[in-house]
């Protein structure tokens, strides 16, 4: 065991790159804030805060997808993920950090921007009193509930995630090699994981996308929306895990994580891309078929208007590419192809979140600008910086985890 590198040390190059990305992102943030964020033009202001909002929510949700992956595999009594489990764990340490950032941005939009913003129309009290639909939804769409639910959502994700990571630290202790200790360990993991999954179901898979994203179009609703958001964030999240694993493998770590494990992660990427498409299509087809104006309003400017290109690019990147490229077994076992697909999927779902938010905030014109990429660089830089730090804190292999042998001999 001594020859195997289990303790991650942050390479200088990674630190330089992450700090460079953060600097570029901060520069974009400052320029954007000066030219758009404090502009007297409400439109420019909406663009700036909308950009911050979709980036922060996207990166928060994909990092939270890591913890969902851990909890779901724990509940399924999965053993195969144990050899690389510390990687999604490290990614999930981003939830409190990105959660705080997203919280500040959302709170500014709700409480600081005034009622004339185009981001959340339901903030406009005069409009709500004269609008039967908005009045009916005002028990859900109001600043007080928004604040409460956002705090609860981010707080409990962070808390339960922290609890799962703390439990995982026990797997470095030889005391766990005892059979009874192992059983108790699995049981405690199961309890916390099920609490997380329940809360995840009540938030990411239902209320949170309604509250944060769907309420940008307060008159419109879709029962598919939350699942759609969940699928989008989870497939990007699992791609992020794949990228980190491939990076660590390249650096000579994770000796026991083989292409067998990568193959299974590739299956997740493939399957959830198809699942995302299924939800995308179900949402689109029903609205297209019924053709009712209060429902088609969401798709009008996306399919026929300014967002046409981005909307169909979204389908090509997130459906056509994964199904054709990842279908073959050899593709899922190929490190280069998996890296390419993971980057493509993360980019594709970032585009998806872009059109979900900006398509409603400014329906009349579309186009990714320096601001979108700059803010994304900021979040990617922060992610690399803090995930690297979190990875260096613990050994990469939880040696005394009861399922570690099952994971090492995993065969697909």
């Amino acid at each position: 065991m001594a020859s195997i590198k289990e303790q991650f040390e942050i390479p200088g190059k990674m630190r330089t790159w992450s700090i460079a990305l953060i600097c570029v992102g901060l520069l974009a943030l400052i320029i954007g804030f000066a030219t758009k964020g404090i502009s007297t033009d409400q439109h420019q202001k909406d663009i700036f805060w909308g950009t911050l909002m979709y980036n922060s929510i996207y990166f928060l949700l994909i990092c939270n997808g890591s913890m969902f992956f851990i909890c779901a595999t724990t509940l399924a009594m999965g053993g195969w993920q144990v050899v690389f489990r510390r990687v999604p764990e490290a990614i999930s340490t981003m939830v409190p950090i990105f959660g705080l950032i997203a919280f500040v941005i959302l709170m500014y939009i709700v409480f600081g921007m005034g009622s004339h913003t185009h981001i959340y129309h339901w903030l406009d009290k005069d409009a709500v009193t004269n609008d039967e639909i908005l009045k009916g939804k005002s028990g859900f769409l109001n600043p007080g509930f928004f604040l409460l639910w956002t705090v609860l959502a981010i707080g409990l994700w962070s808390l339960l995630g922290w609890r799962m990571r703390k439990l995982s630290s026990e797997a470095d202790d030889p005391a766990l090699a005892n059979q009874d200790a192992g059983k108790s360990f699995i049981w405690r993991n199961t309890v916390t994981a099920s609490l997380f999954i329940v809360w995840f179901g009540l938030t990411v898979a239902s209320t949170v996308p309604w509250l944060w994203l769907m309420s940008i179009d307060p008159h419109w609703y879709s029962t598919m929306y939350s699942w759609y958001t969940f699928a989008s964030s989870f497939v990007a999240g699992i791609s992020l895990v794949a990228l980190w694993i491939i990076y660590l493998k390249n650096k000579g770590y994770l000796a026991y994580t083989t292409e067998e494990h990568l193959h299974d992660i590739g299956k997740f990427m493939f399957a959830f891309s198809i699942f995302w498409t299924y939800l995308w299509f179900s949402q689109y087809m029903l609205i297209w078929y019924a053709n009712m104006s209060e429902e088609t309003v969401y798709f009008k400017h996306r399919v026929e208007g300014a967002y046409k290109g981005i909307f169909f690019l979204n389908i090509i990147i997130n459906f056509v590419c994964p199904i054709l490229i990842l279908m073959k077994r050899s593709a899922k076992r190929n490190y280069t192809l998996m890296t390419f697909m993971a980057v493509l999927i993360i980019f594709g779902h970032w585009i998806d979140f872009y059109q979900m938010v900006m398509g409603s905030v400014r329906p009349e014109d579309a186009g990714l600008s320096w601001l979108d990429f700059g803010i994304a660089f900021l979040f990617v830089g922060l992610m690399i910086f803090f995930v690297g730090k979190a990875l260096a804190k613990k050994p990469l292999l939880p040696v005394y985890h009861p399922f570690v042998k099952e994971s090492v001999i995993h065969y697909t």
Partner: protein
Amino acid sequence: MANKNFVVGCFDDEAVLFPAVKKVRMAGYKIHDVYTPYAVHGLDHALGLRETSLHTAGFIYGITGTATALGGIGWILSWDWPLNFGGKPHFALPAWIPITFELTVLFASIGMVLTFCYLCQMAPFVKKHQFHSRATDDAFVMVVEPTPKTNLEDLKAFLSANGATEIEVQEAEAGWWLGTYDKQQKLVRDKGIEVA
């Protein structure tokens, strides 16, 4: 089809089977197949089987289904006999997607089942020879195909040395042909006629 001799070895344990498979192959004997009560992970690798082409066939069947559905519906509804359904365009692609999906799945699944049966030499009314009935219960049955030059006693001793608990020589049909198998078995059993 010719009947052939096979040397059948029974193993009680997966852990004994794997080194035995390796040694039998190293010694140059040809393993006809290994019959196990459940799918044993890694056995295909140990036997040196190539990756199956079944999934490539499945992809082709699936694409055929997609093309059939899109081509068929497209020809009927937009070309040959356009009808107005609820004011939708004649080329109403989203409405066709569910049927296209179903036909893709149907073609792929039926095509793959038939191909699988063909590759496994299974067909209705063909009774396959069962080398050892414990292969469906608790034994791992390795079937070695000797050449005419193979010394059967040596092979049996070799299997026994590598952990086989039960060894016997059986005569069975090497390939398959619809119906001929049963007839040949009957001839052998009833009249002692050797079918060449």
